[in-house]
Each structure stands twice: as C-alpha cells, then as structure tokens.
C-alpha cells in the first residue's frame, strides 16, 4: 500500500489528486493502483459489460427469429386455407385438402403409449443408481447411459427393424410395422435420457437434504413423494422435456411405424406422425404442398412451446 502511493505521488501527481477526489466522492475504501489504459479499459468492460448486454440480446433475437421463421414462410397457408380444412382428417395435398388431424393424433398416441413406460423405467433405474452410488458398477452404467443418449436414433431404428419387427410379426401377426413396435423402440431410445435427468436431479436433492433421508423414512411421505415435493421443477421439467423428445423424434418412427395414413384402431396397426410426414414429403413437395409442410412445422413448434411453457413462472423463479 505504502510503496504504491509513493510511486504515484512522484509520477502521476495530477492523476493521483483526481483519483483521490473521486475516492472521497464515491466513498469507496478499496485500494487502487496505477493502471495502463488497456487495464482501465478491460476493467470498464468487465465491470459494466455494456457490450455484453447487447451481444446476449443480439443472440437471443437471432434465436427468436429462427424459431419464428417457419411461421413467416407459411403465412400464405394460414391466410388462404380455412381452419376447417387444415384441422380435418384428410391429407390429400394434390386435391387441396391439408388435414393435419391424422398426423397429430398419431404423434399424440405415440406420446401417450411411450411416456408412461419411459418415465416408469427411468424412475426405477435412477432409484437403483442412487441406491448403489458407491458401487463400482455405477460409473460404468452412467457412461453407458451417456453413450446411449448420444447414439444416433437410426441405430435404434435398425435394431428395431432387425429384432423387434420380426418378433411382433411372429407373435401377433400382421406386417409388424405398428404402434407396438414403435412404442418399444421409442422406450429403449428415451429411457436413458429420462434416467440420467432423474438421477442428476436426485443427486442435487440428496445434497440439499443430506442426512435427512433416514429421518424422513419414519414420516408418512415415501421417498419418491419427498423427491417430487422438494423438486417439483425438476420432475415437471423432465416430463415436459421427455414429451417433446417423443413428440419430435423422427427417424425411429419413420423406420418402424409403417407410415400408413390412418388413425390406428389398436396397437398393431400402422400410423404416421407429424415429424415423419415432414421428413418424408419435403423431398418432393412443391407449391402449396411445401407450404403446408412448413405450416405443419409451425403447428409442431406452437405445440411444443405450449407444453414447455406450462411452468413458465416456475422456470423464472428457479
């Protein structure tokens, strides 16, 4: 402290006086030392971050623009075609009838069958992982789950074509390309994601309530109820995220579902989802047909936004 003031007193008297004035003015007590202009600039950037605000805002605007772009390019479709047309159940783009009913029901049925299975399996495996978190097997399993998450979905599709479809065909008859096969494939695909999300949030829960776990065993609440009560955002957020993953999964469904244009009556019939339709028909679509596919993408975006932002207020608080 002493040495630094001496240096200042000799070299930058004027500067020092000014600084002293400022110091008295702002009433700050922290020590300051002589600085080069670059250091002052760096400090100004670091402290105030004027640029930072605009950079982040710019990035966010780009993302919002990207998400809104399908709506911009399918504006003609929503302006020209009446609602009764595009909410009906006939999809014949050549005859100007663009009903999205079949595809939407297909997607939602897939979610309805897969979501409970995936959540159940993920929950059970994550509880086992938490119980055995000191076990040597645990890191190996977590590593395998991470590989599963980033595995291409087409590999699971190929596995389903080789293994599941002949099995379903052998047991139940029919072609094998059905809602049941898609459900099995999607459950295998989604379970690792679900497991790891539950496992990680359970670990933070354990951090918060360390040592209380045993004492809560005497209470009326079960372990899972306690977890859900303590971390509602994690649980609901996981369910929403899994919903979107199943709703938006394309490749497995494209390979396994059979893509027949119908609402499936039972588990053994083929069906078609929204995303599979976009993936299949984008290659040869033209004019209004292509615009209808963009409109389909818009509908999917809106659907997912609604599902994700159900707990908007909780997200902001957390």
């Amino acid at each position, binding site marked *: 402290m002493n040495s630094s003031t001496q240096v200042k007193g000799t070299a930058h008297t004027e500067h020092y006086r000014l600084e002293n004035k400022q110091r008295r003015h702002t009433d700050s007590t922290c020590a300051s030392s002589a600085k080069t202009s670059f250091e002052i600039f760096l400090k100004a950037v670091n402290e105030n971050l004027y640029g930072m605000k605009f950079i982040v805002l710019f990035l966010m605007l780009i993302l919002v623009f990207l998400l809104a772009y399908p709506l911009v390019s399918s504006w003609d479709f929503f302006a020209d075609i009446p609602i009764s047309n595009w909410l009906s159940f006939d999809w014949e783009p050549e005859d100007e009838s663009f009903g999205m009913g079949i595809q939407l029901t297909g997607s939602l049925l897939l979610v309805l069958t897969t979501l409970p299975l995936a959540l159940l399996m993920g929950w059970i495996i994550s509880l086992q992982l938490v119980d055995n978190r000191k076990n040597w097997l645990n890191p190996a399993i977590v590593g395998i789950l991470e590989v599963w998450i980033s595995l*291409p979905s087409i590999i699971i599709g190929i596995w389903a074509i080789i293994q599941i479809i002949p099995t379903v065909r052998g047991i139940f008859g029919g072609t094998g390309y059905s809602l049941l096969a898609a459900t099995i494939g999607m459950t295998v695909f989604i379970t690792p994601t679900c497991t790891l999300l539950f496992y990680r949030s359970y670990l933070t829960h354990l951090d918060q309530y360390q040592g209380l776990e045993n004492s809560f065993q005497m209470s009326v609440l079960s372990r899972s109820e306690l977890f859900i009560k303590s971390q509602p955002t994690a649980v609901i957020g996981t369910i929403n995220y899994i919903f979107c993953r199943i709703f938006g999964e394309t490749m497995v469904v494209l390979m396994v579902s059979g893509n027949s244009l119908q609402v499936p009556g039972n588990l053994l019939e083929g069906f078609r989802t929204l995303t599979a339709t976009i993936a299949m028909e*984008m290659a040869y679509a033209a004019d209004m047909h292509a615009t209808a596919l963009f409109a389909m993408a818009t509908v999917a975006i809106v659907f997912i936004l609604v599902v994700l932002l159900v707990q908007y207020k909780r997200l902001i608080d957390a």
Partner: protein
Amino acid sequence: MLKIIKQSWILWLYMLMTASIIAIFIKPLHFEYTTAGIIVGTIITTVGAVLISALPAYLIAGVMAGIIHLPKWLQSITSVLVYILAGMPSIILGVIGFLLFSNTLGLGWSMLSAMLTLIMLLYPTLVTAFSQLLRPFNQRYGMAAKSFDIGPLEFLFRLSPAYQKSKILEALILGWATSLGDTAAVMLTCGTLTSFPESILDSIRLLNYHIYLLAMDIPGGMPEARSLSLLLIIFLLFLFIIPRLIHHYLSED
C-alpha cells in the same frame, strides 16, 4: 456375488440388454457404397459446427452460471430460450435450416448450411454442459477472483480454461457426439452426393443419413448399414472413454 446382483439387479439387467442390442450388430463387416468423401465431409461438418457454436455457448453459459451479471429480464429470457431450444425436435431445426440457409440465403444443399443448422442443435447441449462445469468453478474461485480484480470476461476466458481444460474438452466431445448422432436436422440441408468435397459450399452426404439411406432406400444395403452402425457405436464408446482417461493427466486438483 449373488448378494451384489440382488442389490442392483436392474442395473445388471440393463447391462445385459445393452449387450444384447450391441450383439445384434456384430456380424462380418461389409463395405460397398461407403466412400472417403462421406467420412471426411462428416468430420469437417460436425467439428466445424462444434467449434463455431462453442464461443457463444460459452458466453451464455457464463450468464447462466452467474458469472456475468445481466438485468433480470435478459437473464430469464436466456434461460427460457435454452430450455425451449433443448426441447425443439431436430426435424423442425432441419426445416428452419432448409428454409433460411438453403433457400433464402441461397447456400443450397451444402456443408455450410448443414453446419449452420447443426449449430442450432448444439447450442442448448453445449450451454448446459458448460454451465454445469462453470457453476462449481464460480462457487469455488469466484470470490477470490473478485479480490484480485479479475472481471467476468477474464475469469471466463483466462482462468477457467487454465484450470479445467479436461472438462471443457469433455463438453466439446459431448457436443461432437450429439452432432454425429442427429440425422433429421441434416437430412434436409446437406444433399446426398457421395463425392469428395472440394469447398465448403459443396454438397455431401453425412454418415448417419448414409446409414439411413442404406437401411431404407438402397436395396441390399442392410449389411453395410449394420456394420457402419457397429463402427459408429464403437467410435462413440471410445469418445466417451478417452476424456475420462485424459482427465487424469490434465486435471487441476
């Protein structure tokens, strides 16, 4: 032994299921349609996308981890947008890329437009991975850095890379694996040419889309699709094991 299996029987069952799924792919390798252009193009596109998206994702992760302080409304917008983008289906991102980069900007079916599409896909993954490694680092060294007059930007770009190289590498590798694993986002933006790419505006066929075409469209392509996916599984396993091995040599503590 029986006791161990009894304690964690579901985990053993899961291991068994994984092994049985991988065992399906183990057959004699068979290559006919795969060219060097596919592999080189795939590597260039995915690595380029990861490297381009790493910088903005790192900045946003700094915002999410509480290192860079912004007004509250902006902070909530960033976290909500990451959450939304993480839930977006990859085919929707593919449609956006097809509309904006291929059609409106006129990049056509090229490596560049596939790269730009992959950035959108990678952004939430990388942000969550980076913020997971930055948050404990900030809790540990944040106050000390403040007392040394080190601002957030210096903290992010000088201190953090110096202290946790291996973790950042791990996050980048996770991003690379994610970009290798996704098909729907790129099937609409990079074409289907199998020749060797000569510039960044050339059309290529990415490996995962190649596997899809072999399995579904090309007659008699199934054995090759199977052997390619086996190689991809082994490669991804290595990708996830190697950083854990390097961690020992690069680690800071």
